[in-house]
């Protein structure tokens, strides 16, 4: 098996006001021509891993190789082989789309004669031809992201790193970007992408690793992960906390994990959605409980975490806690650290 990306026991501690162990022995391999997803909540170490693999940061210990080249020893060679689209669209606001791509082309030392042509080609591929000569200040978030991705592709890298490529995008732009990434992979590019969304990893990645506080806590194909987890989440809202507790007791036989109660809402991950839903309704009916809300949804990263670690994700910021996106589940009560990451349920 030929690996395009190899990470071997990477460790990185940031010293500062607080000492943060961002990576604590992270290892994984990415096979050539596949998409690898690094899934984890804010602060789990995704960006740190990407920075090390793209030569931006030196690990304290451990080794990393891209296309067989050690990223620390042959940094400049590695840089000529990879493309990076960082967590925030890193484009010059005061330049036009075309100027941005041409600048990156020149900094990649492409032959003078090909720089303009390559920029034009990418602008067309990414549906930016009409906006090519507009200054980026007039671009939407989705357009910037696409330009950022285009900039990462200028030198036709065979290994591509995408750090949270769709965070902050509306569902439509997110879908568009997914299609772009899928067509890239169809062309043979190896992709490492980080995400907070199980749905995104599920759709794009051939294999993935779940990161938590700098540790890989699970690894495998999305199917394996979901099989471990239960493929669907049954979410039932009750009228009182008392009834929620009773419902949780009733749902116990449905899932492989214990049903979770938060406030008046009960959640249980189940293998067979419709069948379990019917059983759940029967149980409630027999007990004389009438649910206020009854939903089946795809599991989110939050559910993966709950299943793997017994606790919810602890996002440092609430940038992804958009209640409008979280399927009506809303914020959990209690400490602000108990935010939910809610994209998985959009599907």
């Amino acid at each position, binding site marked *: 098996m030929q690996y395009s990306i190899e990470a071997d026991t990477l460790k990185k501690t940031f010293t500062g006001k607080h000492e943060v162990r961002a990576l604590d022995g992270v290892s994984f391999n990415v096979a050539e021509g596949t998409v690898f997803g690094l899934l984890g909540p804010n602060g789990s170490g995704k960006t740190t891993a990407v920075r090390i693999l793209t030569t931006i940061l030196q690990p304290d210990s451990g080794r990393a190789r891209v296309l067989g080249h050690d990223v620390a020893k042959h940094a*400049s060679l590695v840089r000529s082989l990879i493309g990076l689209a*960082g967590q925030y669209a*890193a484009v010059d606001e005061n330049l036009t789309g075309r100027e941005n791509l041409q*600048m990156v082309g020149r*900094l990649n030392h492409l032959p003078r004669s090909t720089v303009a042509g390559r920029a034009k080609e990418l602008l067309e591929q990414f549906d930016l031809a009409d906006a090519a000569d507009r200054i980026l200040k007039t671009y939407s978030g989705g357009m910037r992201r696409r330009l950022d991705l285009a900039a990462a592709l200028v030198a036709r890298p065979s290994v591509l790193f995408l750090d949270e490529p769709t965070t902050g995008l509306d569902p439509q732009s997110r879908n568009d970007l997914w299609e772009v990434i899928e067509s890239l992979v169809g062309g043979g590019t190896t992709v490492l992408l980080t995400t907070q969304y199980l749905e995104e990893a599920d759709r794009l990645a051939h294999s993935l690793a779940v990161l938590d506080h700098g540790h890989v806590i699970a690894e495998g194909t999305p199917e394996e992960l979901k099989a471990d987890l239960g493929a669907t989440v049954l979410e039932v809202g009750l009228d009182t906390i008392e009834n929620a507790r009773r419902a949780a007791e009733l749902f116990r036989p449905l899932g492989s994990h214990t049903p979770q109660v938060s406030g008046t809402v009960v959640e249980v991950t189940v293998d067979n959605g419709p069948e379990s839903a019917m059983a759940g309704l029967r149980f409630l009916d027999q007990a004389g409980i009438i649910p206020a809300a009854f939903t089946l949804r795809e599991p989110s990263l939050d559910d993966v975490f709950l299943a793997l670690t017994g606790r919810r994700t602890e996002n440092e910021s609430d940038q992804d806690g958009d209640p409008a996106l979280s399927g009506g589940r809303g914020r959990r009560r209690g400490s602000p650290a108990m935010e939910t990451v809610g994209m998985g349920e959009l599907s």
Partner: protein
Amino acid sequence: MTTTATTAISAPTVSGAPHSDNVGVRLRWAVADSLTITKRNILSYTRIPEALFFSTVQPIMFVLLFRYVFGGSINVTGTSYVNYLMPGIFVQTVAFGSVQTSVGLAEDLQKGLIERFRALPMARSAVLAGRTTADLCRNVLTVVIVTVVGFLVGFRPTTGVLPYVAGILLILLFAYALSWGFAVIGLSAPNSEVAQVIAFPLLFPLTFASSAFVPVANMPSWLQGFATYQPVSVTITACRALMLGGETATWVIQSLLWSIGLLVVLVPLAVHRYRTRI
């Protein structure tokens, strides 16, 4: 985007950017990269109204303010006030102009551009070299504008073209050295606003407790030592001597020593900050 972006993206024909370990090739690339970044920064500046204002309108306002508002009440010996004033205005405006180095770098850091640059096969030195070179170009523009406005309001250098040009070059070298100091600040600041604000407590004493606008002899005695020998004043005095005559060599040498000394200290410091930031 309203439609989809499913245009099939063809398999890479040539993979990756060119790579070379040849020293000559790498050197040529380093120069090309610096020029690319310089060009990008200059292009950027032409599209930021504030940056254009700082390098064009503000210097003109200073000339007019001191020439016509304060000038009447300031007495200098041996020459007209406008002649006395102009070298001071030159140095003051380029010193403030070099603040843009810190603002620009802090912005690039904030927006993640530096991160992109670090993952590109470009020369490591190009970001700082390109930034300071672009700021030097902006300062050249400022100096040209101030020269024109100066002549319009009665500035009449007495020593001829060559010493005048030498004076301008001395000022630009000094501003270039200051740019590297502001590069250190820009790379250390948490954001571009702080990078801009920090500059003023540093520059105000240097430009106003100087011989730029009033003769040092008019200042309290405890301030005179500082106001005479600090680098901004030294450069102004050297420039005044070159443009209007008088004791020249010692001041020019002192100014050169300051600029070179600052560069020797600040360039490695800025490069170190650039390497260790993130």
